């Protein structure tokens, strides 16, 4: 019998304080995003009606009564901005979620089953060539404008970006000896994908999803600004900016404040994504 006395190196304990100290970007991005999500969820119950018109109070600058000022119909911009965060976050998160699921499925299939790879990837290249704003305008002229159609219009061109990332990762994993080892051990396709390939694609997928989320929020705002997004009566940041455009000279707050929030949200998501990428990339994570 051989000796069984090899000692394993001790494991480091997980500590929240150390984790925060080592990943300031993730912490900052995550905290900021968490605050914005909290505002989007509970905020509307504490503020008034975002559609309430009060012509007497038109274009008031920010003050103690109207924290963010009012617009040309006398609507409270603070209330509207809080409601607008809902639209941005719903669009960003649902586009990220839907395109991740679709992109993951297609990416796994392309990377794993080489027979369909060429065909699917050429379609993806084609889809990627469509500008999302034009696609959205086309879709909205064909149907009724609404949040759903905006999400669909943004998801379609975002899916190929995810597919490419997942496919590249799957091709890398397929070449790993542990995949051959599993095949030699009698592991069959479904289990191989589920147990050995899929979990290793999740880290890069999450990172890519954060970038998609940020870009979806920007596209949504652009669409609303152009009048091709959510209907004008819905208070989204894009709509608020679009409506404030004419009065920018006399009421700059109606553009600067929602614009600032949009920038802050995108920044939070991007910081989170960058931090996660640095953390999850094994080449960087192994630094001393």
């Amino acid at each position, binding site marked *: 019998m*051989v*000796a069984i*006395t*090899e*000692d394993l*190196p001790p494991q*480091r304990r997980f500590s929240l304080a150390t984790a925060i100290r080592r990943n300031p970007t993730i912490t900052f991005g995550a905290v900021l995003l968490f605050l914005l999500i909290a505002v989007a969820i509970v905020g509307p119950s504490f503020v008034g009606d975002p559609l309430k018109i009060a012509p007497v109070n038109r274009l008031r600058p920010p003050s103690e009564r109207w924290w963010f000022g009012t617009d040309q119909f006398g609507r409270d911009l603070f209330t509207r901005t809080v409601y607008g965060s809902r639209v941005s976050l719903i669009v960003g998160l649902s586009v990220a979620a839907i395109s991740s699921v679709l992109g993951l499925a297609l990416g796994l299939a392309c990377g794993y089953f080489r027979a369909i790879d060429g065909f699917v990837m050429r379609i993806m290249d084609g889809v990627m060539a469509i500008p999302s704003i034009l696609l959205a305008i086309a879709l909205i002229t064909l149907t009724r404008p609404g949040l759903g159609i905006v999400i669909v219009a943004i998801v379609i061109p975002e899916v190929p970006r995810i597919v490419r990332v997942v496919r590249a990762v799957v091709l890398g994993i397929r070449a790993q000896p542990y995949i051959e080892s599993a095949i030699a051990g009698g592991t069959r396709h479904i289990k191989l994908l589920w147990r050995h390939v899929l979990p290793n694609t999740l880290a890069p997928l999450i990172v890519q999803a954060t970038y998609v989320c940020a870009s979806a929020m920007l596209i949504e705002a652009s669409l609303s600004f152009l009048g091709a997004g959510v209907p004008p009566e819905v208070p989204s940041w894009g709509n608020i900016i679009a409506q404030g455009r004419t009065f920018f000279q006399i009421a700059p707050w109606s553009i600067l404040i929602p614009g600032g929030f949009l920038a802050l949200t995108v920044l939070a998501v991007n910081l989170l994504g960058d931090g996660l990428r640095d953390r999850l990339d094994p080449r960087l994570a192994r630094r*001393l």
Partner: protein
Amino acid sequence: MSGNSGGILEVRDLHTQFNTLDGVVRAVDGVSFDLARGETLGIVGESGCGKSVTALSILRLIPPETGRIASGSIKFEGEELTTLGEEAMKRLRGHRISMIFQEPMTSLNPVLTVGTQIAENVTRHLGVSKKAARERACEMLDLVRIADARRRLDEYPHQLSGGMRQRVMIAMALSCDPQVLIADEPTTALDVTIQAQILDLMLDLKEKTGTAIVLITHDLGVVAETTQRVVVMYAGRKVEEAPVEALFDNPLHPYTRGLMAAIPRLDVDAPRLQEIPGMVPLLTRPIVGCAFAARCPIATERCRTAAPPMVDVGGGHTALCWEVTP
């Protein structure tokens, strides 16, 4: 041999440490040895024993972000290297002390021809004209027996085979007539027939140029074949030092003995290989007593509690062990 006036390199009580998330790693933990002019010294040990870090320490190539020479002295021709300025060190490296590495591809620049790279080293250190440097490069490729040297000067590293690249590295290392050549596992990445060619070449060149060689390897066969004196390292410490014949005839330290009994032999049939049980101790914790005690078949209580003495049995043969009697 050690300690006499012929020593070109003297390492005394060298401690090199690295800061990691797990704590301070004592990669080299009090190593001393001498290198005589024109001598071939082998440093042998398993991965993580500190043999490569010793070499990097001599050349002051320890990355300052993570590691440092904590204490000790390295004297090259009487000059202290541990405190030498970086500029002076740069003039020394590749000129009077050279180094070749295990994987030549990573130490050659892929976008420059091999001729340019050798010539650059020559111009930098010897200050000769470009033309003379190129002549020297051609001469060096000839010396390392690369056929058709003039044509090869204009080739890029990727156009050469692994054995050829190692020859180019040797040509570059020797291009300024160094007094000391440090070779870190120079043949480990090569096939056995190519390894034999490179070892032959290194020994031949040593005869011709009189360069002293420090050969770092894990392979006892390579050590037996090429070196005159051997330092055996374990867990950052020198556990034995001896002339090569004495080491193989009469290994004193239990670790050296264990290694010799553990290698399969090409020349004899062994019924069963001896195992060294367990594994190398963690270098993040201070080691009390002998570093090998936990795996040693003859360890006593004393070995586990008190640091063993370096016992000199004469003839330049020393071992770091309580159980060896002079």
